[in-house]
């Protein structure tokens, strides 16, 4: 019996209906958490002794960096599920996760670069974490570009799933080799952000923001997956009715 819900989860229609109930709550939670976290971090948390107010960028840089990496693993795992159990839905989740992860990586890079200016005087710092983040962005772009290159959806899904898996195997190696490379060339400069020694008054807003970002990630991933399901299943009757249902209510209202 345990497998039954797993395969039921696999049916796009069941996923669409189930997530319709969760979406509003998730959206509310992420807006509240991120709103509160930002206000708290920007206005009420103390400034950093060394870096002053530019330190407040941490409240968006760290969550974005977290999710950029976690997003890649989520993408790779859903791709692997699709390859192993041939589940269409998990391929759709993978395809939805790729652009979201890429945007989050870009956010992490941009905020890191802007943060670098007041701290080190240059926008681009070849710090280990920023460099690894840049390579992660290239990995994402590789998966997105590969997805676009194939004419047939099923083949594109499997190819991207395989590339994501290959990427996952390489990420730890890339991160370690970039760390080694960084310590080799710039042993003296400070490590970018020492989270362990963070002061509680700064840690709680950061925690709020991280949870808020995770809720937002979940909501965005669901929203994108639902849209891709409709695009792929547009021939089925339930999508036709859904779209017609939409147009009928709108035509009544309009």
């Amino acid at each position, binding site marked *: 019996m345990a497998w039954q819900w797993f395969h039921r989860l696999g049916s796009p229609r069941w996923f669409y209906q189930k997530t319709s109930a969760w979406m509003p709550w998730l959206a509310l939670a992420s807006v509240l958490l991120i709103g509160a976290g930002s206000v708290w971090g920007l206005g009420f948390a103390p400034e950093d002794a060394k870096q002053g107010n530019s330190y407040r960028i941490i409240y968006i840089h760290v969550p974005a960096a977290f999710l950029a990496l976690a997003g890649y693993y989520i993408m790779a795992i859903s791709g692997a599920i699709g390859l192993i159990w041939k589940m269409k839905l998990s391929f759709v989740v993978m395809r939805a996760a790729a652009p979201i992860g890429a945007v989050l990586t870009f956010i992490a890079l941009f905020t890191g670069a802007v943060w670098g200016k007041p701290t080190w005087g240059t926008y681009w710092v070849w710090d280990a974490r920023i460099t690894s983040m840049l390579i992660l962005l290239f990995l994402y772009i590789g998966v997105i570009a590969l997805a676009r290159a194939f004419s*047939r959806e*099923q083949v594109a899904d499997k190819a991207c799933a395989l590339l994501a898996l290959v990427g996952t195997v390489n990420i730890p190696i890339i991160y370690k080799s970039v760390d080694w490379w960084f310590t080799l060339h710039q042993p003296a400069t400070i490590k970018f952000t020492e989270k362990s020694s963070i002061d509680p008054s700064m840690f709680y807003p950061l925690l709020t923001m991280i949870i808020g970002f995770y809720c937002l990630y979940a909501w965005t991933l669901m929203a994108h997956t639902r849209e891709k399901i409709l695009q792929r299943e547009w*021939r089925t*009757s339930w999508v036709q009715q859904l779209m017609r249902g939409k147009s009928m209510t709108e035509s009544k209202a309009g």
Partner: protein
Amino acid sequence: MMALQASPSQLLRVRQLSCERDGRVLFAGLDFDLGPGQALQIEGANGAGKTTLLRTLIGSAGDFDGEILWNGRAFPAALPELRAHLLYIGHGAGVRRGLTPLENLAWYGAARDEALRALEQVDLFGFEDSLCQQLSAGQNRRVALARLFLAGAPPLWILDEPLAALDIAGVSGLQGQMACHLSRGGSILFTSHQPVALAGLRTLNLSEFASPEPAGFAEETIDVLA
């Protein structure tokens, strides 16, 4: 005519097979059996899915509905077993341009003299040692067809347009070899636009199995929008 070596259980059975390509259902509800000593010709308009059908049977095209059985065991478990008994010639001849016809046949595991005899039967006498890239497309296809004339050729032949690049003599030679293969208990499934003179040949028109309108367009959706 008692089948000599082919084990009687070599049976390809297809049940309610349907294949979809780019959201369009090419054919649905396809049923046929192919046992030892039988030949089946697949006809159908271009784009009816003939090549997709063949590539599904050899396992290259993965997603299909329905059932394909080889010796009673269903795909994908039975796929390695089927491939061990399969000789497939697709659109791409499977002939490497950088090698000579002899080297190509050696690559398929044929001894030298056997390969020479096979090449002679496909009218490639004298071309054994010239590079395939210098041969014409028709000659390259005939190098691929030479595999059918090799002694240890596998029992199940799946051929995509085998007669396409052959002249009159070539066609009759190939038909002779096909008849001989059938008499030895082998089975052949091939696509062709030309009629083929083979005893006991069954034909199947794929266009008859084309599916009706894609499921999504129920009648009432049109009235609402019109």
